[in-house]
């Protein structure tokens, strides 16, 4: 361990990056530094607070949750959950038995969430990228517009979503007023927060709240594209649209790789938006998985099944993330060659 620590300290001194060469030649002249050993422990000391907190709040509860999923944890055992009887794979069997009501509802909620997430992430990405690309050049009012576009993202979720709840009201909401009273598009006022329309209501709110994040990230990514690329393309006679297609979009690939993944995970796990929009009981058409599991745990007080569903959800997300990263990274590498 001591030898590796020394080696570590040695590699520590050699910086990475373009400045590495110059610094590395300077290093040997400096001679052995005092307190090398102590320094080898320093990174761990610096990481300790973050590590402890992540363990306490995320990893330990996750392990507890996984254990709970194998228990028959109903309200009778809540005070002393350790004494709940083991149920083996019972909770999982109930969760994935798609012919029984519990499993069927879970599958339905899962499919709704998948559809919702794909649509929401796609639209957020599309609008965010288009806005960022259109606002790359300076024009009058650009700064103001940029600030304005970030407002939905900056608003606290509940404040924004409550406003949408008001707009979607049946009798006194703006949406019905415009669609029915002013444009006469509908025969009668529609319900937006119950029934099938609730899916579109949720999608609208989610896109409204989510696209500025894509905008923000793409905007930042655009600033890292060297100007020379555009100049060279312009000299070669490439027009604006061609520059966007040939330079801007390919250069954004690494940014998009992370952005789409993050958007996907956030949207898939989103609890705040549906919870504030619909309250505790989400309509069937917009029954997102987090609210569904929350409902399954806290309303029926069956925490064992709720935990099993959460574990299944996590496994699914791990799988998707793994496959996604494998696919996009491979594509990127061959793209570079």
């Amino acid at each position: 361990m001591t030898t590796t620590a020394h080696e570590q300290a040695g590699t520590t001194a050699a910086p990475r990056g373009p400045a590495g060469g110059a610094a590395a030649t300077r290093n040997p002249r400096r001679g052995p530094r005092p307190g090398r050993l102590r320094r080898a422990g320093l990174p761990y000391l610096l990481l300790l607070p973050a590590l402890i907190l992540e363990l306490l709040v995320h990893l330990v509860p996750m392990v507890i949750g996984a254990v709970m999923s194998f228990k028959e944890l109903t309200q009778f055992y809540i005070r002393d959950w350790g004494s709940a009887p083991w149920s083996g794979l019972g909770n999982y069997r109930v969760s994935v038995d798609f012919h029984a009501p519990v499993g069927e509802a879970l599958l339905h909620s899962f499919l709704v969430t998948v559809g919702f997430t794909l649509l929401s992430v796609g639209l957020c990405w599309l609008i965010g990228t288009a806005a960022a690309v259109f606002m790359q050049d300076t024009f009058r009012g650009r700064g103001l517009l940029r600030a304005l576009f970030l407002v939905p993202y900056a608003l606290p979720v509940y404040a924004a979503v409550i406003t949408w709840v008001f707009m979607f009201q049946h009798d006194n909401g703006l949406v019905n007023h415009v669609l029915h009273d002013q444009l006469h598009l509908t025969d009668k006022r529609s319900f937006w927060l119950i029934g099938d329309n609730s899916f579109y209501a949720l999608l609208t709110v989610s896109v409204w709240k989510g696209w500025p994040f894509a905008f923000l990230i793409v905007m930042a990514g655009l600033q890292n594209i060297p100007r020379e690329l555009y100049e060279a393309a312009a000299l070669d006679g490439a027009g604006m649209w061609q520059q966007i297609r040939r330079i801007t979009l390919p250069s954004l690939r690494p940014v998009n790789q992370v952005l789409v993944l993050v958007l996907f995970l956030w949207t898939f796990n989103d609890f705040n938006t549906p919870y504030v929009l619909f309250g505790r009981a989400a309509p069937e058409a917009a029954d997102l998985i987090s609210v569904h599991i929350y409902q399954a745990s806290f309303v029926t007080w069956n925490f064992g099944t709720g935990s099993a569903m959460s574990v299944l959800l996590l496994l699914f997300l791990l799988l998707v993330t793994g496959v996604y990263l494998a696919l996009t990274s491979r594509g990127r590498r061959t793209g570079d060659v």
Partner: protein
Amino acid sequence: MSKSPTAPPMASPMASPRSFVWSRRVFLTLLTGFVLVPVYVMVSSSLKPLADVTGRFRWLPSGLTVRPYIDIWSTVPLAKYFVNSLVVAGAATVCSVVIAVFAAYAVSRYAFHGKRVFTVTVLSTQMFPGILFLLPLFLLYVNIGNATGIALFGSRGGLILTYLTFSLPFSIWMLIGYFDSVPRDLDEAALVDGCGPLGALFRVVVPAAIPGIVAVAVYAFMTAWGEVLFASVMTNDTTRTLAVGLQGYSTQNDVYWNQIMAASLVVSVPVVAGFLLLQRYLVAGLTAGAVK
């Protein structure tokens, strides 16, 4: 960083063609409408008399009144929720930023065993569905409280602890990128001059990374200020935050939409104003850090 992070680079030296300018106009106009309508509804409704928000929707108020802004404080104990949210979000932000600075410095400047495991683990906590650890965490806090007498459940402390870990992964990730862009020669020089590693961190690296740190702080504050799920389970009457407290307006017999809109506006102003003032740093921070 060779160029100023806030200076908008001219993307194309060529003049934009007409088709581009027109598409831009149409697209940005539509988008502005989409973004602005809810904001307009929020602002205008908060100034309407109750009759205007109970009947058919009106684009223009029949008369302007500031009554809703007075009434919101007595309909629900909004001031108390406000203070709770400020304390919780403020403390979570400060702790999260400090811890993230330490962690990011370690990852950015040192080679050590388990570095990859650490970054991957911390980042992957971002993908955990909150619902997965809500209940276990709740049980954990209750048990810690029973065993040690430290009240985490129902207290602001427990909520601060929870929220700061929500923003930690993103903050660390972003600061690693940002610290990497601060030339190592700078802190090497500080070390030669006799600063310890921590001296180098606080005298050289942190000052050079201020935009990134501000960006991370904004993100951490917004995360804590807007969280609903854990706030709804882990708070009680005295520690309730705005996220839960705001729901109090709609559980009354009459739904005072003008008051709800006024309250939403009041709770949004601190974060939106802060965010808009500091968004340049966020973009600069993202440019140098996260998206690199």
